[in-house]
C-alpha cells in the first residue's frame, strides 16, 4: 500500500470538503455544542449531571464535559456530515479516474476513512479550542491546564469518532445503506450505541464514562458528599434546580482503559477495510440501475449517459438499446419541423403539474415499499386506538419526503427548468404533491378519527399532514440535500413518539383523550411559514442567479 498515495487521497478529499460552505456551518455547530456543554451556573439545562452535582468549571471538568458531549453527539451527527465521500467520487466521476490507477481498493477505502476521520477530528478540535474559552467565560476557575483540557478529547471523543468515520465508509459501499435507508439505520444504530456506550459494562469502555464517573464519585466522597444513589447522567436534560458543585481535578487513564481506546481504532480500521471484499471500484456495470435514484443515478445528462452506457451490453449507433435490449436499427431521425400546434390552455394546468410532481416524488419507489405502506394502512383500520400506527405510517415515507425541494438539483434540472416560466407554481405543485402523499400514507387514522367524530384529532392530523411536507420542502430547497430533513425529522419524530408533547405534530400524545401537543392551527401556521421560506429561498436564488 502506497502511503503517499493514501495520504494524498485523504488530504485532497479533506480539502474538497472543508472548502465547502457547509463545513463552516458544521464547525459553528461544534462551537454551539461546546457552549451547550458548559451551561451557566443558573441554568436548568445540563449535559453532565452527577446526581444533582457538577464539577466546578475547571479545565478538567470542562475538558471532560465537552469531550463527552462531542463523543455523544458527533458520533451520531458527524456520520451525516461525512457520509458522502464515496458518493461524491461517484457523482463527479473522480471515482472512475481513480479506479483506472494503481491505487488499491484497500488504500482507497483507507483514504476515505482517514478523510472522514480528519473532518470529524477537526470538529472535535473546534470543541477543544472552544473549551478553554468557555472556562474563562464562566469564570469559576482561571487556571487553564492544557493537558487536563485536551486528554479527554484524545481518549473519549476521538475513538468513537473513528468508528463513525469507518461506519460512513461501510454504509456507502452497501447498496441499501448507501441510500437514505442508511441515514435511518444509522440513527437507530447510534441511538443504541449512545445508550449502551454510557453503561458501566459498555463494550470497550463505551464513551469512557465509567472511569470518569468513578473518579468523580471518589472526589465527591472526599468532599463529604454522599454518593449513594447519585446516578451519572450524560445527555441534554432539564433539571428542577441548577446543579450544585464539587471540585474535580480529572482522572488519570490507566493502561486497560487506554488499551480499550486503542481497540476502537483497530475496530474502525477493520470496518473501513471490510468493504474491500465487495467494493466495485465505480464499475458502472456493477451498479443496480433499478436502485433508488439517490446517489446512484446521474446528476446530469452526461452522468446519466455514463451510467446507462456502462450498463448497456450493446448499444446501437443511435444508442436506442437499453441494457440487454436488442432493437432493430433505427430509421432516420429529425425528419422535419413539428407541424402540430402547441396551444396553451385557458387555465394553468395545475392538476397535470401536480400529477407530474407526484410522479417525480414517487419515482423509483419499489413495490415492496408500497406493499409495506399498504400493510400499515390496512393495519391502521383495525388497531384498538385510531392513531396507534400513525407514527409508523408517518416515519415510513421519510426517504420519499426528503426528496422534496432537492430533486431538480440532485438530477441536474436546475439549468433546464430555470428557463421555464413561473417557477413558483412548480414549487407549490411540488408542495401539494407532498401533502397528497402524506395524506395518503396516513389515511387510516384520519378516517377512523372522522368516524369517531374526534375532531381535535382530525385537526392535529391535518396540521401534521401539512407540516411534514412543508418542513421537507423548506429544508430541501434551503440545503439542497436529503440528509438534513432526514435527520431533523427523525429527531422530531423520535421526541414526539417518546411523548414530548411540545413537538407532537401528529396528535399522538394524548391527554384526556385529546391531543396534548401543539394546536393544529399553530402547526399549520408553522407549515405555511416554511412553505413561504422555501418560496423565498428559491426566488432569492433565482434573483441572484
Amino acid at each position, binding site marked *: 500500500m502506497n502511503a503517499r498515495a493514501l495520504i494524498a487521497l485523504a488530504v485532497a478529499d479533506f480539502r474538497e470538503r472543508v472548502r465547502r460552505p457547509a463545513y463552516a456551518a458544521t464547525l459553528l455547530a461544534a462551537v454551539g455544542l461546546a457552549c451547550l456543554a458548559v451551561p451557566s451556573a443558573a441554568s436548568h439545562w445540563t449535559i453532565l449531571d452527577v446526581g444533582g452535582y457538577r464539577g466546578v468549571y475547571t479545565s478538567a471538568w470542562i475538558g471532560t464535559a465537552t469531550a463527552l458531549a462531542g463523543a455523544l453527539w458527533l458520533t451520531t451527527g458527524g456520520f451525516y456530515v461525512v457520509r458522502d465521500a464515496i458518493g461524491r467520487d461517484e457523482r463527479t466521476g473522480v471515482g472512475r479516474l481513480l479506479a483506472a490507477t494503481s491505487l488499491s481498493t484497500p488504500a482507497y477505502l483507507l483514504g476515505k476513512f482517514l478523510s472522514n476521520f480528519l473532518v470529524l477530528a477537526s470538529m472535535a478540535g473546534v470543541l477543544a479550542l472552544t473549551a478553554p474559552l468557555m472556562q474563562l467565560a464562566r469564570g469559576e476557575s482561571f487556571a487553564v491546564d492544557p493537558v487536563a483540557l485536551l486528554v479527554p478529547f484524545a481518549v473519549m471523543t476521538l475513538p468513537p469518532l473513528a468508528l463513525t468515520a469507518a461506519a460512513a465508509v461501510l454504509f456507502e459501499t452497501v447498496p441499501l445503506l448507501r441510500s437514505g435507508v442508511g441515514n435511518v439505520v444509522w440513527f437507530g444504530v447510534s441511538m443504541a450505541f449512545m445508550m449502551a456506550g454510557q453503561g458501566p459494562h459498555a463494550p470497550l469502555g463505551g464513551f469512557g464514562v465509567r472511569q470518569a464517573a468513578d473518579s468523580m464519585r471518589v472526589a465527591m466522597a472526599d468532599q463529604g458528599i454522599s454518593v449513594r444513589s447519585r446516578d451519572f447522567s450524560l445527555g441534554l436534560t432539564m433539571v428542577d434546580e441548577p446543579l450544585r458543585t464539587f471540585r474535580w481535578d480529572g482522572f488519570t487513564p490507566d493502561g486497560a482503559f487506554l488499551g480499550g481506546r486503542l481497540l476502537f481504532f483497530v475496530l474502525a480500521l477493520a470496518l473501513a477495510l471490510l468493504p474491500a471484499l465487495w467494493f466495485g471500484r465505480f464499475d458502472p456495470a456493477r451498479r443496480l*440501475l433499478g436502485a433508488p*435514484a439517490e446517489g446512484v*443515478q*446521474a*446528476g*446530469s*445528462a*452526461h452522468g*446519466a*449517459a455514463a*451510467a*446507462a*452506457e456502462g450498463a*448497456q451490453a450493446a*448499444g446501437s449507433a*443511435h*444508442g*436506442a*438499446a*437499453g*441494457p440487454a435490449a436488442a*432493437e432493430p436499427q*433505427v*430509421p432516420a*431521425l*429529425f*425528419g*422535419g*419541423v*413539428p*407541424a*402540430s*400546434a*402547441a*396551444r*396553451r*390552455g385557458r387555465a394553468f*394546468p395545475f392538476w*397535470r*403539474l401536480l*400529477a*407530474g*410532481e407526484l*410522479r*417525480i416524488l414517487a*419515482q*423509483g419507489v419499489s413495490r415492496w415499499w408500497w406493499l409495506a405502506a399498504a400493510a400499515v394502512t390496512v393495519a391502521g383500520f383495525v388497531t384498538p386506538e385510531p392513531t396507534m400506527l400513525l407514527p409508523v405510517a408517518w416515519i415510513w415515507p421519510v426517504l420519499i419526503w426528503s426528496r422534496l425541494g432537492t*430533486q431538480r438539483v440532485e*438530477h*441536474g*434540472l436546475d*439549468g*433546464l427548468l*430555470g*428557463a*421555464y*416560466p*413561473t417557477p413558483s407554481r*412548480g414549487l407549490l405543485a411540488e408542495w401539494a404533491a407532498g401533502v397528497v402523499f402524506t395524506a395518503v400514507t396516513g389515511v387510516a387514522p384520519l378516517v377512523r378519527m372522522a368516524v369517531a367524530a374526534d375532531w381535535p384529532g382530525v385537526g392535529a392530523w391535518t396540521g401534521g399532514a401539512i407540516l411534514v411536507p412543508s418542513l421537507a420542502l423548506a429544508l430541501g430547497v434551503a440545503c439542497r440535500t436529503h440528509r438534513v430533513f432526514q435527520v431533523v425529522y427523525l429527531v422530531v419524530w423520535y421526541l414526539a413518539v417518546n411523548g414530548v408533547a411540545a413537538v407532537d405534530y401528529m396528535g399522538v400524545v394524548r391527554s384526556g383523550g385529546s391531543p396534548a401537543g401543539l394546536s393544529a392551527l399553530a402547526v399549520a401556521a408553522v407549515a405555511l411559514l416554511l412553505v413561504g421560506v422555501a418560496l423565498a429561498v428559491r426566488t432569492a436564488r433565482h434573483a441572484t*442567479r
Partner: protein
Amino acid sequence: MNRTPLQGTPTLELEHVTKVYKGGKRAVDAVSLRLGAGLLGLLGPNGAGKSSLMRIAATVTRPTSGKILFDGTDVVSRPNALREVLGYLPQDFGVYPHLSAREFLSYLAAVKGLSARSARRRIEELLELVNLTEAGRRPLGKYSGGMLRRVGIAQALLADPKVLIVDEPTAGLDPEERVRFRTLLSDLAEDRVVLLSTHIVSDIESVASDIAIVARGRLLRRGAPEELLREVDGQVWETVAGPAEVAALRERYVISRTVRTADGVRLRLLSATPPGGGAVRVTPDLEDVYLAVVNGSAGQSLRQAGAGAGR
C-alpha cells in the same frame, strides 16, 4: 436602433451584457447582439463565455449589467415574457431517471402551461421527430447520452418556441444525427430566432447565415460567413515542411491543419504576408477565420471589420 419589431418576427436584443461571477471572473464582457428570425451561430473556444451568454439570453442567469430585450420587453426584470416562447437546451442538463421520456415531456408541457390535448399531440410528434417513440416508455436512466440529448431537443421544441437557444447541442449525437439536427435548426430558423453555440466550426458553417465569434467573454467578430471569409482572403497558406522546420513554423504562425505525408508535413497556416518556403495561397474556410480571430493573428482589415460587430 429600431426597437419596433416587425409584425410576427421576434427579436431578441442583448445590450452591453456583462457577467462577473463571484471572485471577479468576467465571463461575459459588454456583449451586444441583435437577433431577428434566422440562425446565429455563436462560435468560440472552450471557456470563451458562450455558455454564460446563452444562459443569460435564456433568462437562467441574470447579467451583472446590461439589458436583454425580447420584442422590446426587458426580460431581466420580466423573464416570463421570454420564457413562455422560449426553447432552451443547455449544454449540460439532467433528467428524472425513473420517468419515461413521455412522462418527462408531459411534466414539462404542464410546466409550460400547454393544454392536455395539445401536449399529447406535440409529445407524440416530437418523440417521432427525435426517433424515441419506441423508447418513449423506458426510464430515462437507461438512455444513452445521445438519446438523452434527443430528449433535450424534444423538450426545447415542446411549446413551439419563437426563440430557440441551444448550447453545444450536437454533443453526444452521432455524425448522421448531427447533420439532420443542423438541418432541423436551419428549417426552424425560417421564422424563429435561433441561437446556436458551439466550438465545432463544422456545426455552424453549413447552416448559419450569421456567425458571431467570442473569446475571453468578448464579441470579437460578427458577420455572414462570406463576409468573414473575405476578411482573411489571401492570408491562408499551405506549405510542406520537414520535421525540423515544423516547430519553428508553429512558433511563428497560427497553424490550422497538419497532415503528415511521404514528402514531409503539410501545414496550413495563417499569415498576412507570404511565409516563404514555397508556400502557396489557398482559399480560406471558416476554421481559418475562427483561428485568425481567436488568436488575433488576422490583419488590420479584420480588426477594422470588427467595428461592425454587434449590429
